[in-house]
């Protein structure tokens, strides 16, 4: 056996979707996390309910790097369909675990091969035939536990969490895990170098997914109305609202301070959310790319009629239906310019699960403050996978309700006010909402041309001055959106700009570049559009700026080139999109290759 490798490798588990393997995989992930070892899990699943190949990748890394890697040291397969490809994917010196009912050739001598009696042991388990397929997955959990040294107690804790403490489910699954471990102890001789051992690197972290975090953040942001239409990978965001709102936002009499509606399509979902936002409610919708396309016309109405609304886009790879269960950062340009006519939209770009929570409430504040649609761009990787993350932080500022005039305000103003007048010089007008009983409260909302009093007009000057005010409002937004996070590096000659779920990838790439003798790089993680002044300041400091993103066209590169044309010659696009989260190795190699061209 070669030198032992502890707490630094990746495992891929290949199964058939719909077979319940997700429970087993997340159990492994959580057990490792409970052992104090930094981990990440990526579910690479098909757009299908049952029967197609699915993979789950766990990265274990003592140094805390949680980005996806292409290299797999350990591969477990239960799926004859993907068997050959799974076998080929094992790194030399790695190990291959396979269900021994699959009778296919194994022509590799550079790896350890471990057969697993999955079917046989599932039959032996004391469960109903209907549960056999599910319990079968626990066999590989047990075998891996023994072979890698995963603490059995942490597996029990993970199962207990998953089954919400239901003793019978926990016990029957755990006894199969134990049986698997016992079988491995008696029948397998370890010949690979990979194992895990307890650490203390996950205390102060929780495990959660971005969609749950986004929903909770919105709830702490006083969300009152949400409308949505089912779509992968955004559905669990709205479903999380349905789970947590009743727990957190009912009065002592059991009455609701909120309403969630499943709409008939995305057109209606955003329409309802805009109706509620116009009515004075903290309102949002959540969707993915195809839904965003359908929402385009309505988004323009919210921009132009100045209605607060939050739109979460949990991105998947497109165009068109694309790959509904694969990730990308492909909606940036589309959302930035979403809808016809002159406009730019306000985008928040959360980069971690914790930040999904934070932007969950901040987006509602910004929407009401700016009376505008606020888009939050997450993605499938961030939204649906379990990540170790810092705990959610209680909001540190009260709800920002913006410039709303109620009856008493209008009395003080003697009823004199104008809906679309720039009274404060920040481009943000005052508004009233329905139910205000003052006789001069009402105004007539419209997507048609309007004057300061919301009356229809086709007057050329009025049109132009209103559009200029909207532009001014966008400049105000620039001072309000979250500032970027900058990792300054001593002696850095190049800068990297990235956003969203690629943060851990770029963090790791910075180290890899250094190790490869490449340039020192500083890193700016963009958290919003429009760009705040810090972005320009950062760009000026470096010879080249690499803009790293998971899309084909280099969409942030497109946008930054358009908004900062003077700086554009120094921008270099590093973009790549195949449905999988970017790897640090790819970032490193892409930057090195471009640097060598110089």
């Amino acid at each position: 056996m070669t030198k032992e490798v502890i707490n630094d490798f990746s495992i891929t588990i290949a199964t058939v979707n719909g077979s319940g393997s997700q429970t087993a995989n997340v159990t492994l992930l959580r057990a490792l996390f409970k052992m104090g070892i930094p981990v990440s899990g990526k579910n690479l699943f098909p757009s299908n309910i049952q029967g197609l190949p699915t993979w789950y990748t766990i990265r274990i890394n003592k140094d805390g790097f949680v980005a996806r890697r292409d290299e797999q040291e350990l591969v477990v397969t239960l799926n004859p369909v993907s068997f050959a490809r799974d076998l080929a994917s094992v790194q030399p010196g790695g190990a291959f675990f396979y269900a021994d009912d699959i009778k296919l050739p194994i022509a590799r001598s550079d790896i350890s091969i471990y057969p697993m009696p999955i079917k046989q042991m599932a039959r032996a388990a004391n469960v109903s035939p209907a549960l056999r397929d599910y319990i079968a997955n626990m066999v590989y959990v047990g075998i891996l536990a023994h072979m890698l040294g995963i603490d059995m107690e942490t597996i029990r804790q993970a199962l207990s969490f998953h089954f919400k403490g239901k003793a019978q489910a926990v016990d029957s699954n755990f006894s199969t895990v134990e049986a698997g471990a016992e079988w491995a102890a008696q029948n397998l001789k370890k010949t690979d170098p990979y194992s895990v051992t307890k650490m203390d690197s996950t205390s102060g972290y929780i495990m959660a997914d971005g969609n749950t975090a986004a929903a909770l953040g919105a709830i702490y942001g006083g969300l009152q109305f949400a409308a949505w239409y089912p779509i992968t990978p955004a559905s669990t965001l709205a479903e999380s609202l349905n789970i947590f709102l009743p727990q957190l936002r009912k009065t002592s009499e059991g009455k609701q301070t909120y309403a969630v509606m499943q709409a008939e399509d995305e057109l209606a979902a955003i329409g309802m959310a805009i109706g509620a936002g116009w009515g004075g409610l903290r309102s949002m919708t959540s969707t993915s790319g195809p839904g965003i396309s359908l929402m385009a016309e309505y988004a323009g109405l919210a921009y132009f009629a100045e209605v607060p609304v939050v739109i979460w886009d949990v991105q998947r790879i497109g165009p068109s239906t694309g790959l509904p269960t694969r990730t990308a950062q492909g909606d940036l340009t589309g959302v930035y310019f979403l809808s016809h006519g002159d406009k730019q939209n306000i985008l928040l770009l959360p980069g971690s699960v914790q930040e999904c929570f934070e932007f969950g409430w901040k987006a509602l504040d910004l929407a009401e403050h700016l009376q505008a649609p606020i888009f939050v761009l997450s993605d499938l990787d961030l939204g649906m996978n379990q990540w170790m993350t810092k705990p959610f932080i209680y909001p540190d500022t009260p709800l920002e309700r913006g410039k709303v005039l109620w009856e008493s305000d209008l009395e003080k103003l003697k009823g004199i006010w104008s809906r679309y007048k720039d009274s404060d010089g920040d481009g943000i007008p005052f508004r009233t909402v329905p139910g205000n009983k003052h006789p001069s409260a009402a105004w007539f909302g419209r997507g048609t041309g309007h004057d300061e009093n919301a009356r229809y007009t086709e007057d050329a000057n009025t049109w132009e001055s209103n559009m200029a005010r909207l532009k001014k409002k966008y400049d105000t937004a620039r001072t309000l959106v979250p500032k970027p996070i900058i990792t300054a590096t001593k002696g850095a000659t190049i800068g990297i700009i990235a956003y969203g779920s690629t943060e851990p990838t770029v963090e790791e790439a910075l180290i890899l570049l250094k190790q490869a003798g490449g340039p020192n790089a500083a890193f700016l993680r963009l958290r919003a559009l429009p760009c705040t002044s810090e972005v320009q300041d950062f760009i000026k400091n470096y010879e080249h700026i690499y803009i790293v993103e998971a899309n084909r066209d280099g969409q942030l590169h497109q946008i930054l080139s358009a908004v900062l044309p003077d700086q554009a010659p120094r921008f270099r696009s590093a973009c790549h999109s195949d449905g999988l989260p970017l790897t640090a190795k790819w970032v490193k190699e892409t930057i090195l290759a471009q640097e060598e061209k110089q």
Partner: protein
Amino acid sequence: MTTPAPAQTNKAGLSKNDYRGLPSTLCQGCGHNSIANQIITACYDLDVVPEQIMKFSGIGCSSKSPAYFLNRSFGFNGLHGRMSSLATGALFADISLRAIGVSGDGDTASIGLGGFKHMVRRNAPIVYIVENNGVYGLTKGQFSATAEVGLDLKHQGINQYMPVDICMEALASNATFVARSFAGDAKQVKELLKAALSHHGVAVLDIISPCVTFNNQENAIHSYTWGKDHEAPLHEISFIPAMDEIEIQGEFAEGTVREVSMHDGSTVLLKKLEKDYDPTSRANAFQMLESVQLNNWLVTGLLYIDESKPTLTETFNLVDTPLNRLTDPELRPGRETIDKINGMMF
């Protein structure tokens, strides 16, 4: 010097002027103007405070009309065919408010048919008026989905396709109030509007409202001439608000009147005309619509009513305070809950 006579006021202390809107910019003689006037009268007669009403519309000639009534009501003229969703969300802002939506046949039966039917099936509490003229006016005279087969329009040729019957679509989607009227029959429009404003849930009013510019040929179904010649009211309709004592006398001879009690205590009286029609039977309504289609009549009146179903907002068990008046303590969970939530994660 003479003091001007005080303007006549209703029980809300408001004059008719308090219910008016901006001057109409629609064509002279447009049926939509007559409907706007009846909305003003109905709201005045019912003593509704304008601030207690929200107005909605889509895009089209009809959708302009909310600007021409109830100036003191909040309104939103949204997107083409999307009034349903906009209003649905807005209804949650303050559930003490009433809503009036005005749409057209293009807005409702063509681009917005899906949203319309979903709003109907949810029983959203709104008076949903379709000003139906079988033609696109604002884009200058194209066929709408309610145009009859054989309609011949300048530049368009002859319509080959069967029309969408808005009342039929509403019924099929489980509407709880379906009525048809004719803009030329002002009294009936007004009484139906009053009943609709008191209805508990969605009230669909399909009002044939001739387009004097693009579709008013004598033999066209959506014309004044045809409407006047073919209108067959199911009943003579009167609405008695909850606060008024109901007196069935005089013109309402006993035995010829059907009385429908509304959820808010008001009453709709339907005086029998040719035959006795029971508007609480959905099957009757379907049968009636089917037979008039075969016989080429324009049957008007209250086709169907069901006051028993919960409205959309009632299904949510919302707090009594309007949602849009809630503040931080009601909207943000307490600081102590965050540890519990973090503890619920793994």
